[in-house]
């Protein structure tokens, strides 16, 4: 398990292309709390606390491809 900084916020950015080395997750693979966060953050200029099963750089397939930025 990668070291995770406490208190990071994540947001979602639409991404046109998926890098071959990215970890890609389908919405249905995510824990319920992450699903709620993804549905909430997609296409909105909002942030939420970083989810346990998502990491900076992950790509999530929801209604589009979204890249997670956690800072």
């Amino acid at each position: 398990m990668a070291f995770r900084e406490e208190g990071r916020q994540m947001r979602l950015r639409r991404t046109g292309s998926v890098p071959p080395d990215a970890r890609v997750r389908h919405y249905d693979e995510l824990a319920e709390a992450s699903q709620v966060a993804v549905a909430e953050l997609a296409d909105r200029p909002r942030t939420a606390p970083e989810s346990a099963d998502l990491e900076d750089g992950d790509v999530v397939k929801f209604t589009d491809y979204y890249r997670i930025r956690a800072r």
Partner: protein
Amino acid sequence: MSDSYVIVGDGIAGASAAETLREEAPDAEITVITEEGESLYNRILIKEFAKGKLPEAPISIHDESWYDDHDVDLRLNTLVVDVDVENDAIRTHEGETIEYDSLLLAIGGTPQQLPVENADAEGVHHFWTFQDARKIKESVEDADRGVIVGAGLLGIDFAAICGAQDVEAKYLMRGDSWWRYALSNEGAEIMHEAMRERGVEPVFGSGVDHFEVDDDGHVEAAVDPNGERYECDFAGVAIGLDFNTEILEDTPLETDDGIVVDEYMRTNVDNVFAAGDITEFYDTILGERAQNGAWGSAKEQGTIAAHNMIDHGSEPFEWVSSYSITHFDFPFLSFGHPTLGDDSVEATTDEGEWRRVALKDGRVIGGVLIGDLSPQSAFKQLMREKRDVSGQRELLMEPGFSVDDLVASTEH
């Protein structure tokens, strides 16, 4: 001597069981056997590969080194043909016998063929494996016109693939709407419109009577029971699954549609367990036997089965399954058992937003959300808590519904 665990199937259910067993039983012998030629991959992303949106690499989950690193004996391209529960052994197609102390059957299902002429012609596709996805992609990239059959969750993947690959398609449905067992016409119409926008035309009161083929045996048309002929060079058929229970026919293992297990994923034979799509499990939330066909549920069942293989009765499966459709610019989510129940309530909550909740004995047992997924946690919570919502069902349709609304109104 250490315990030996044999897992048949390296889909998400079998693989998550292997992972859990290795964590909890560091010295155990673990063997994973799969008929497929590749180890665990992300079955719910292969449609994105077929759409041309995703390369192969991110779809792999466990490469073969994972099995070495975790000291798991992986057997690819190996079909289990017989289970001998009296002697605690399985037999492979090559005649090898492998003994076990505890066996997990995570063997899933196989897509059904249409029982019509030329249902196996070149260009007629079924969709379950990564190999299927590669063939679909190749075939759809060369196609101009497509036909899709099967008005359910896998059929709509074919529709999205045709849409993404610029194939003009007819989606032939027997009834008058898509997934009519879970949605009313009003909800389904949102889905129909999204298909049309992608060049996929739903055709109702139709279906396939037979396929026509050219001189090379390649599909060239589907003819429906009304005699309408739809030319196509690609056909996608997703009419349901046959669960892979044939290998259990001569065993005392109880099967119905799938393998019958209790809430601990154990069959009627003490050291034989099952997990994933193949199970007909006792659903503690529904209060009766049920089947799920979803990734999250299969993964959880694999984990739970592993816990109970080590210590039976240690952890029951208590899970509200869900399944989304992410092909369109609005989200769709079905949860629980949306096709069951004795009552339902539905509403359009905003433009393009629709929801339906299925109820049984006054309790929420499933539903469908289109456009607005925000009540998903509240509905799943109501299911887990088995809350009686009779007399308050209309509240479930309020746009910002939360469980607290219900508590407040109950207390009043």
